């Protein structure tokens, strides 16, 4: 069994998340898969933790990110690390492939959903294995979908137009990163729970590369804002 039974006199179920992470955008490119997410964990509507590195490297060629309840994310990272450690126990050098992680997570999420006590997460698993790019979304219900691009949260609403206009599955890494940064610019303007500091990571043949967090450029010096501050506009 995957979990020990959660025994308590009054079983609590996850009804709503408390500390949440923001949108995740993941794209496939010609040499691998790239994921971007912001570095904010919100406490409801308060931007409480602003320097959180939310990209987990679960194995040499697999990364895992999720949006939703952050404590669930931390727990899942531990669960995924547990599978990899089994290789030590059996001493056979067999490590899970990215697809193995994706399916395991889908089974886990589905089991918790069936008990009406879900992992409050939209999960994204990305990897590169045997020359093949791998990208999958596992949602709160345990639905498992492999795809060339994945968006969670508000990115699903605001960013799909940008992605479909400026990205294709055989673009270069730089192009894909540029698309992700554009998307997060838009998100920062439109999504109240978004942050302008993002982190990008990519997996390719050589392995995983997690970059340092960076601030996306945003523009606020629009004339409309400047003249609004000028009272003359309102008195005339």
């Amino acid at each position, binding site marked *: 069994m995957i979990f020990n039974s959660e025994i308590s006199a009054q079983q609590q179920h996850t009804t709503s998340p408390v500390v949440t992470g923001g949108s995740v955008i993941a794209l496939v490119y010609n040499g691998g898969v790239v994921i971007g997410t912001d570095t904010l964990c919100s406490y409801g509507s308060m931007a409480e933790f602003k320097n959180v590195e939310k990209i987990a490297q679960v194995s040499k060629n697999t990364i895992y990110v999720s949006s939703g309840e952050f404590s669930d994310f931390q727990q899942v990272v531990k669960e995924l690390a547990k599978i990899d450690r089994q290789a030590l126990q059996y001493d*056979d*050098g*067999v490590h899970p492939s990215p*697809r*193995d992680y994706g*399916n*395991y997570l889908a*089974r886990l999420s589905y089991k918790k959903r069936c008990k009406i006590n879900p992992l409050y997460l939209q999960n994204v698993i990305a990897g590169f294995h045997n020359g093949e790019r791998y990208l999958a979304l596992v949602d709160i219900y345990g639905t498992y979908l492999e795809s060339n691009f994945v968006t969670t949260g508000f990115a699903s609403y605001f960013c799909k137009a940008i992605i479909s206009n400026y990205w294709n599955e055989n673009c270069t890494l730089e192009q894909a990163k540029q698309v992700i940064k554009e998307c997060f610019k838009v998100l920062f303007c439109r999504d109240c729970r978004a942050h302008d500091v993002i982190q990008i990571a990519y997996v390719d043949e050589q392995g995983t590369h997690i970059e340092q967090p960076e601030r996306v450029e945003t523009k606020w010096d629009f004339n409309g804002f400047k003249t609004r501050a000028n009272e003359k506009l309102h008195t005339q």
Partner: protein
Amino acid sequence: MLKHLYDTDCVTWSPQGKLFQVEYAMEAVKQGSICLGLKSNENVVLCSLKRQPSELAGYQEKQFKIDDHMAIAIAGLTADARVLCKYMRTECLEYKYTYESHHPVGRLVYKVAEKSQHKTQSGAKRPYGVGLLVAGIDPNGVHLFETCPSGNYYEYKCQAIGSRSQAARTYFESWFHLFEKSTLEQLILHGLSAIKKAIMEDEELNEKNVEVGILGKNQKFTHLNAQELRDYIAKLDAFNPNSQIQQE
């Protein structure tokens, strides 16, 4: 094997450091009819000789598919083999359900060995009286393992277990250096030739008493059907491993 002192149960060592119950269990494997396995870079072949309890009865099957990529051949107590077969199949199914991929072969053999060892360290239990030849293919390559009632397991290039298996192993010792690069057909013919060494003088190989199972990197486990067996057995007399050397 003769009777020994200190052989009443598994929890008694002999002064020479032996567990006689475990040794006796391995005798049960040696009493079973022969089964053998051999592997190349691409394929594994399992061959076994089936026994017929009486003329009215069918032949006892000795090879079982565990999953698309794995199969076993048994020698010893068939009932014990059934238990291990069921366990291996369940483990493969659970692994597939969780990970959507095939159970690594070495890991499953390790699990079977752990189960077997547990039976050798308990007062109320007896060891499994069956030896398995586990053939499997996974991302680590092509595998052939042998498991023992003692809880040990070994990986082989080719191995024969059961009654009169020494004759087959002698054949293997002469020719196993050719197996790595052999084609599937050559591998099957080698396997059948080895089994032929192990049958009694008045017996003959036919499609009823021989069982051949094949596994390949792109080939799920299948048994050869009666017609294919007849064809291969017919080719045995003309089969000369020396010609394979000349090809290389």
